[in-house]
């Protein structure tokens, strides 16, 4: 316990088992073989050492060279990138096919065909390298040859840059306004006095209606605009009918379309309340 609490002791405990592992890890680092860009690049470099025209190269010899090289690296306990190993396996197979021409099924390419394919790929890669070198050694703009340092830009005069006639303009204006007058219908939010609202107002007023009173008189505070009149009257009328049914108010109308009068059913109580 003391050791774990102690800072140094703790780090010792943690580090001790790790240290040997890490050393093994060092040797397991993946090697990008001497800066070669992949197995094909390595093969091409090995082929160069044969110092013959790539067209006449011995693929068998090349395969052996490659396998030997890879073996050498592995003896140095270097972990090789996977594609180098895949190539090694493929070359080992190619080598066996070339040395022991087994009767292969028809679909499979023969050893010679496989060798030719590899030779082709090597030649093509080399050709592209040469081409790249030729390309880069050309007189390149901005490196060997130069364009005008102070170009005089073409000045664009924009006066009549956009074509549009007065007719276009008017047509656009008229048709768009026309479109809008049809399609943009401003539906104004209708103000509605709900039945509930009307009932609430009427209920509050029941106590203060002394005698027959025209409905529109005591509703006038709510009829602020002409548009409101209809909805206020309609809702109040419906609400008042309900109140009549409940026996709380009385309604009276002397003639069709004449004023509607309302009074408290229980006038005495109402008066009492008013007095209070």
């Amino acid at each position, binding site marked *: 316990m003391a050791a774990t609490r102690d800072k140094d002791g703790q780090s010792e405990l943690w580090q001790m088992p790790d240290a040997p592992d890490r050393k093994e890890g060092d040797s397991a680092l993946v090697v990008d073989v001497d800066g070669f860009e992949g197995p094909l690049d390595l093969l091409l470099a090995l082929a160069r050492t044969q110092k013959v025209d790539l067209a006449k190269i011995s693929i068998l010899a090349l395969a052996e060279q490659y396998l030997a090289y890879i073996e050498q690296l592995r003896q140095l306990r270097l972990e090789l990138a996977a594609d180098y190993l895949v190539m090694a396996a493929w070359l080992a197979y190619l080598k066996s096919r070339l040395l022991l021409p087994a009767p292969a099924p028809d679909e499979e390419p023969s050893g010679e065909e496989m060798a030719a394919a590899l030779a082709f790929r090597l030649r093509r890669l080399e050709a592209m390298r040469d081409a790249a070198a030729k390309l880069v050694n050309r007189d390149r703009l901005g490196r060997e040859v*130069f*364009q*005008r*340092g*102070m170009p*005089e*830009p*073409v*000045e*664009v*005069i*924009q*006066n*009549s*840059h*956009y*074509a*549009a*006639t*007065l007719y*276009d*303009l*008017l*047509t*656009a*204006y*008229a*048709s*768009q*306004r*026309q*479109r*809008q*007058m049809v*399609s*943009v219908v401003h539906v104004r939010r209708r103000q509605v006095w709900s039945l509930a609202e009307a009932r609430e107002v009427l209920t509050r007023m029941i106590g203060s209606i002394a005698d027959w009173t025209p409905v529109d008189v005591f509703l006038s505070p709510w009829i602020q605009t002409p548009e409101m009149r209809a909805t206020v009257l309609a809702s109040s009328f419906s609400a008042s009918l309900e109140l009549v049914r409940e026996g709380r108010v009385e309604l009276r109308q002397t003639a069709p379309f004449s004023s509607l009068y309302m009074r408290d059913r229980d006038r005495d109580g109402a008066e009492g309340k008013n007095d209070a």
Partner: protein
Amino acid sequence: MPDFGNLTLLAPEERRMALRMVEAMLFASAQPLGAREIAARLPEGSDVEALIRELEHAYSGRGVNLVQVAGKYMFRTASDLAFLLQRDAGDQKKLSRAALETLAIIAYHQPVTRAEIEEIRGVSISKGTLDVLMEAGWIKMRGRRRTPGRPVTYGTTEAFLVHFGLEAIGDLPGLEELKGAGLLDGRIPPGFSVPEPRDGDALRDDEDPLDPDDLLAAGLSEHD
């Protein structure tokens, strides 16, 4: 009478090389070069002034001249050919329908804010639309409306009148004329109106002048 050069005839091989060098240096340089800068790259003992004079002479009647600016030398297009470097870009680009409508609304309803244009069109306008019209030089920012947010107001320019052959913005046809021309059809709801367009740079009562950095911020300057 300028001629296209007698350098090779007069100059020995080295002189010709020096001339080529001066020519190439002046051509490739991104700034005018002084005689001393040129001399620094020439073989020692070259008579730079003489080389420049010879080159100047050789190019004097050409499409490109060697000119002296602020004591330094540079190639420049011959001044009588400046027209070649101007391109009238017109007559090709068509205004988009959105741009045309926006332009028309600005013309009729000016001074008008972007929000008002959108309200009239019933759709929002992209910044690009106003930019195109500004670039064409047909509209400009006039001022700022004295309402919350102080929106910029737009109006048409002199160039607009010139392009559309109008003497004044008031010459734009009104409602009756548009109807008469068949551009608006008969079913016009009550309350529909076409404003009588008015321009003039004088600000309206509800407009403030533009803020000093309005034009900078928009990356634009007025076009009229």
